[in-house]
């Protein structure tokens, strides 16, 4: 209680910092995408030094530029897939809760089915079906990650629909649309946002994994998965920096997103709201 900033202020500050860092990486990667492709054999296989903090690879490409570009790509794919996933979750969850028992049974069965298949396997299958590449990865990750959020939102809507204040609003002559706008949406929004942000780290990791395994982005693109997979053959020859820095940055990015989501959840969760 005597701390300079209270929990909520610290959470806000931390979230702002995390968001800013992620934004910076995204923009930097975007600007450096050309530099990441430049090959220069006069500087190949350099260990980390001042000019090239992350070193260079066997084709003389700057690993810092490549890492940032790869991360930037990962974040953009992550944002896209998480957004698609969350929207699918919202649609499925709300439909299951409002369109009657039969629709609920079918949709719940679909949720169980998708949940029952191991994530990585499903992502690989969908990605293959969509012809790999950018489209394949986005489809694969987006179509496999909506289930738990959909189930959460379904439960929430079911509970809200029988809440006495919603029933009372209907008795007071409020239309369905007004009830949805005034009562359902404000209650779903925090769950939805937290779910959305917590989807990012999953999406990014799975994108990197399928790409690493060769079922995702094509090898010309400087994606993190591609960088890591290529570096495998050079690791044994002592070029540790090829995998170390990109891997570390990937972990850091994922951790930042997870932190952001967790902070948000703690602020919105009634059990910890006043900490």
């Amino acid at each position: 209680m005597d701390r300079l900033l209270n929990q909520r202020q610290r959470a806000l500050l931390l979230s702002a910092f995390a968001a800013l860092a992620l934004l910076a990486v995204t923009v930097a990667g975007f600007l450096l995408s050309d530099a990441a492709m430049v090959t220069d054999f006069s500087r190949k296989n350099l260990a980390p030094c001042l000019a090239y903090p992350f070193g260079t690879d066997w084709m003389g490409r700057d690993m810092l530029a490549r890492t940032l570009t790869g991360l930037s790509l990962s974040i953009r794919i992550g944002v896209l897939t998480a957004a698609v996933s969350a929207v699918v979750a919202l649609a499925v969850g709300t439909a299951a809760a409002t369109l009657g028992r039969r629709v609920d049974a079918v949709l719940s069965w679909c949720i169980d089915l998708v949940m029952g298949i191991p994530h990585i396997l499903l992502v690989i299958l969908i990605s293959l079906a969509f012809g790999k590449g950018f489209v394949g990865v986005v489809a694969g990750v987006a179509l496999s990650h909506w289930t738990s959020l959909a189930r959460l939102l379904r439960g929430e809507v079911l509970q809200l629909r029988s809440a006495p204040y919603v029933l009372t609003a209907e008795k007071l002559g409020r239309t369905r649309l007004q009830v949805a706008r005034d009562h359902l949406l404000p209650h779903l929004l925090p769950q939805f946002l937290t779910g959305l942000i917590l989807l990012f780290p999953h999406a990014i990791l799975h994108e990197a994994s399928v790409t690493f395994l060769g079922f995702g982005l094509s090898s010309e693109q400087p994606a993190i998965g591609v960088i890591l997979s290529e570096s495998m053959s050079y690791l044994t020859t002592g070029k540790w920096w090829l995998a170390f820095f990109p891997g570390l940055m990937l972990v850091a990015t994922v951790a930042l997103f997870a932190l952001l989501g967790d902070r948000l959840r703690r602020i919105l969760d009634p059990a910890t709201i006043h900490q």
Partner: protein
Amino acid sequence: MTPLLSVEHLSISFTQYDRGTRRRILPAIRDLDLTIDRGQVAAVVGSSGSGKSLLAHGILGILPYNAHMEGTITYDGAPLTPKRAAALRGREIVLVPQSVGYLDPLMKVGPQVGRDKTAVRAVLDRYGLGPETEGLYPFQLSGGMARRVLISTAVAASPALVIADEPTPGLDARAAGRILGHFRELADAGTGVLLITHDLELALTIADKVAVFYAGETVEEAPAGDFDRLEDLRHPYTRALWQALPQHGFRPIPGTQPYPGALPEGCPFAPRCPKCTSECGGDVPYRPLDGGFVRCLHPERGNAS
């Protein structure tokens, strides 16, 4: 004789977030004084949502994480520290909670009351609950049965102090009377009973003395017999309560209890009080008066000393 439990100048406040990131401190209980002797039923009466349930949680040392407690609680002659409270609760000091929500919904009643089967049988029997009750799950209990199970669970350990937090809402007059009768029996057998309720009428049916709680303070402590006649009551608020009873005129005074975040200086009842003077904006001590206590500069009974 030292009292079983004495609470002096107890205050409990909450740290809460306002909108945004601003924090504020809400004093739910500001100055609460109370003593309970062995064999006595003491009732704390206050409006619902006024924070009186926190008294129970404070004594038991189970306040939520954002609460802060000050003041002294003495149990059996020694200070009731959080450590001591933790050791005593569930054994010597027990809580009869508000609702079945406090029972484990996935466990049958029998094992929840206690481990010793014959003791469980005996205590359930005492409250008119047959052997079939032991095999039921909490959701299968009716309101009155659930209340009796809660009491059984609490007294199975033969406690010295029973704290009952709103034990009767939702029960009809007869069932409520029966439940309260069980607390009276416990007191007659030597147990101290602290009854926390919003229902003055029901409290008066079994209590030996009543403490009236208003806006975070005890404003009066009176023997239950004083509630028979309006003239015997000390504090203007207690008198207003009495006159608002359906059988005593049903006459409300205007205004509402101030919100914990927006309390006036001095006496919190002053804005609604017919006898309020400028002095009431200052410090108002809690003092003994004619066999009870009152926190008022111009009490209705006796001469201000």
